[in-house]
């Protein structure tokens, strides 16, 4: 345990040092990577560990984003409290949904969460306090003065996002290595046997849904921070699909893999853009090339290494052990 704490602190320090050395775009993307890392951890926990398929993580992120923004704007609370409220409300919502979800299996759950992903963000258009399509602002404020003039807004976002992501990963990895993590894996691989051994699998599933939602909500608040805004347009079906994609590309049951998945999600549009510029196809190419690359990667990875690129690596480790 102590080793792990040291590892995380070291990691954080390394990231902050890197943040000082790169230009603003990379810092901004670093914050996005941190955001995706949290969001993907939420999927890994739910799908990779408890075996439930959710296509509605975008909706959970929206709950978190709106909870954070409404808290900050209406209560004038400190920023950390807004993030805490994002966790609280999305967990609450996740628990409610998880109660329904625990009764559903496979495609029924996928359908329900898909419907949620489409429907929930649109609610913002109905109630004026949610700001409609333009959304509401979520302004975590300028970086503290003592950090100096050169300390940009985006670097501030990067610091906050990285700190939150590291904390979230630390806690998640501890949960996954605890009794709960083991039980989830047992339920996933053999639901009947687990039920017979006296474990209430539905309660455990609801718990997984709740924690996963809390993580997603936190990611939603971080996303809102990086764009200073919560709006339905930020939590689209495309986002939900992208998250599932990232989780699969990273290996759906590997927590460390989420960093890689997040990196891929941020890097691919960038690579595609560079490629599009080289090909010189104009707007059409740069709009659709990222999708093309992601889709091809996704299809190949499902066919060849459905459990992620780390799959073969892990197998080696296991054999040795």
């Amino acid at each position, binding site marked *: 345990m102590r080793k792990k704490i040291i590892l995380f602190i070291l990691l954080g320090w390394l990231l902050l040092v890197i943040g000082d050395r790169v230009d603003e775009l990379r810092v901004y993307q670093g914050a996005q990577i941190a955001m995706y890392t949290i969001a993907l951890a939420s999927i890994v926990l739910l*799908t990779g560990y408890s075996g439930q398929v959710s296509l509605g993580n975008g909706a959970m992120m929206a709950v978190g984003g709106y909870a954070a923004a409404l808290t900050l704007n209406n209560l004038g609370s400190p920023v950390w409290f807004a993030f805490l409220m994002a966790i609280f409300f999305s967990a609450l919502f996740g628990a409610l949904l998880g109660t329904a979800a625990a*009764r559903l*299996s496979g*495609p029924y759950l996928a359908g329900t969460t898909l419907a949620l992903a489409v*429907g929930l963000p649109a609610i913002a258009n109905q109630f004026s306090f949610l700001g409609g399509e333009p959304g509401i602002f979520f302004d975590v404020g300028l970086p503290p003065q003592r950090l100096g003039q050169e300390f940009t807004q985006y670097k501030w976002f990067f610091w906050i996002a990285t700190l939150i992501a590291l904390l979230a990963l630390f806690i998640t990895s501890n949960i996954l290595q605890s009794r709960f993590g083991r039980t989830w894996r047992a339920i996933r691989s053999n639901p009947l046997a687990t039920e017979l051994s006296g474990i209430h699998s539905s309660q455990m599933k609801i718990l997984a849904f709740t924690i996963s939602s809390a993580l997603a909500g936190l990611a939603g608040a971080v996303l809102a921070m990086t764009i200073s805004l919560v709006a339905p347009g930020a939590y689209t079906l495309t986002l939900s699909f992208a998250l599932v994609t990232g989780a699969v590309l990273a290996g759906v049951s590997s927590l460390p893999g989420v960093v890689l998945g997040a990196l891929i999600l941020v890097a691919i549009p960038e690579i595609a853009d560079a490629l599009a510029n080289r090909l010189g196809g104009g707007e059409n190419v740069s709009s659709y090339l990222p999708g093309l690359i992601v889709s091809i990667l996704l299809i190949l990875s*499902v066919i060849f290494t459905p459990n992620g690129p780390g799959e073969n690596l892990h197998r080696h480790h296991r054999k040795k052990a």
Partner: protein
Amino acid sequence: MQKLLETLLIGVSTGSIYALMSLALVLVWRSTRVVNFAQAGQAMLSTYFGYEIASRSEIFWLGLAAAIIAGALVGAGVDFFFMRVLFKRAISGPAAVVAPVIATLGLLGLIRSIVGLTWGGEFKSIQAPASKDGLTIGQTTIPFSALNILIIATVSLILITLAIIFQRTNLGLSLRASAYAPEIAQLAGIRTARTRTIGWAIAGGVGAVAGMLVTSYNFLSPYSLDLLLVFGFIAAVIGGLESMVGSVIGALVLGIGLTFILNYVGTSLVFIGGFVVLIVVLLVKPDGIMARGKARRA
């Protein structure tokens, strides 16, 4: 009273299009045990073919025929070149639950990108085969047009055709047998793999009709059929995923339900309406309204 009638009529018209998509999803689910998210992509690609023909010939029905043929070929192609490869590699491990979903999502993305690269993202429209003008009954004009009637008629015709194929022909019997019990069907001499591909082709053709009909009163873009997919899927789940009749009933329930929300509650709540209808149905019957005693689970 008039508003109620309008809502019902529009709801049936909307629901009937959902029914086609929902039917396509159910057909594939029954035969392959996969929720085919790429169905929207297949329908979109076929509709683009239909659009090309319809806008060149200026005959909607020619476009529709082209779309159906394209849809059937694309559907068969997806099964033959994609699903067979996918299922040859038996997937195990934590990804097993998501793999088929992810694969079809990937395929949806792939088709969308190819369509986008080929046709661009601009909205295309197809000249509707009938007037969009509301019908006048006596003194009042209701927002229910000849096009709506035509949509309902076209869908009914397709449903009747499908019912005849499935209930009265050997092909239909083979399709049903292969879906219910592939092994027994195979032992009875049915070429189940080929039958499955035919099933995908039929689903593709049906999806293409849905795409063309949606496009006839709306626009076509690489994203324009996403909602059709979502609502078609919700309808299929409401119907219990297994039952073709259930999927049509589910679609009508959903279409009417959503139109009621649109006309009586609020525009923005339509989208969440799908979720509400779904969750209500599933909490009462977790395996859909047409579930048999023993549910098949994925």
